[in-house]
């Protein structure tokens, strides 16, 4: 058992180092941003060399990549997916429409500010962000993980009630399992 502070530090360092080099991204692909993911993954940009690859199910994935605007209908599913994911987990907001609504700021069906509903670790801006921007965003995420600063999941657990209130405000018919971690 590790009790003293210094050995805990070393264990954290090693686990963070390992985590940052194997980022498995859940292939949800919520909006139009999903079109730049295939080029990022294939031969020219080849994200797999950085340890970034797709994962088929939420339970195997580390990163929830929100590629673009979220309609309220999708938001409901995304919250469910996020809560199914296991620690460590991170959220990357991709595209201007996750930051401030982008060009859909006055749409009746899309949310505008993603971090009110899910804890976002890194935002990648642009419409669309280029594959280089995507890789740079993931580089930032790796840096944050390495420093132990990508703590969105902890934030979510601590402020669950606040997030829930925001989520329930836009999703009228809330039929979802209540998780207690």
């Amino acid at each position, binding site marked *: 058992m590790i009790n003293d502070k210094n050995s805990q530090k070393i264990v954290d360092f090693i686990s963070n180092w390992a985590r940052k080099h194997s980022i498995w991204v859940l292939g949800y692909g919520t909006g139009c941003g999903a079109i730049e993911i295939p080029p990022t993954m294939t031969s020219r940009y080849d994200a797999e060399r950085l340890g970034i690859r797709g994962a088929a199910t939420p339970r195997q994935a580390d990163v929830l990549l929100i590629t673009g605007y979220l309609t*309220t*209908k999708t938001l*409901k599913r995304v919250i469910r997916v996020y809560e199914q994911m296991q620690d460590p987990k991170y959220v990357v907001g991709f595209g201007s429409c996750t*930051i*401030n*609504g982008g060009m859909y*700021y*006055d*749409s*009746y*069906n*899309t*949310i*505008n*500010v993603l971090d*009110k509903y899910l804890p976002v670790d890194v935002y990648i801006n642009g419409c669309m962000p280029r594959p280089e921007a995507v890789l740079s965003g993931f580089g930032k995420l790796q840096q944050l993980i390495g420093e132990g600063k990508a703590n969105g999941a902890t934030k979510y657990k601590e402020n669950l009630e606040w997030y829930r209130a*925001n989520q329930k*405000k*836009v*999703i*009228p*018919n809330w039929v979802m399992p209540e998780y207690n971690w």
Partner: protein
Amino acid sequence: MQEKKIKNKIIKRVKTNFKDARDRNDFKYNRLDFSVKKEIIPSVLFYLKDEMGFIHLSHISCVDWLEEGELEVVFILWSPEEKIKVFVRTRLDRDNPVMDNLDMIWRQANTYERELREMYGIQFTGLEAPDEFILEDWQGPPPMRRDFDTEAYSNETYFHRPGREDAEDVRETITKRSGEDIPDFAKKYSR
């Protein structure tokens, strides 16, 4: 010349069969336009499809004329043989829009009708489909109607990140934050 002859032929045949159909024939391209009453829409469309060869349904659309208190439904048909587009339009009462279901003429009309029902509140008698199509748990009025204000709804329902109002130059903000200068070639694009 050829096109004009075909157009006149079609207009003549439609007008002999449907007396109160009003037509418009001043388009410079291959298009015809008929306005009919909503009661005879199915028979007009059946006639155009079976007798005149307008077998392809391109589009069904709806326009909200709020000022006149009416909804206009437009059908766009295409004849592969004659190479002519036909617009068939009809007007519905905005407060009580009811129409006949048309998916026995064209199967794909089903999808269009589901959308119009959800977005404009038009009731198609005899349409067999689930109530919800695109929206989920929608409680407001049909969103595509003119009197629904999407911006007000969005302001009321969703959070907004401040900063959009002042239309600030992003380039300057970023350079200020990072402490770098704007490169010369980019300066001429800055405001």
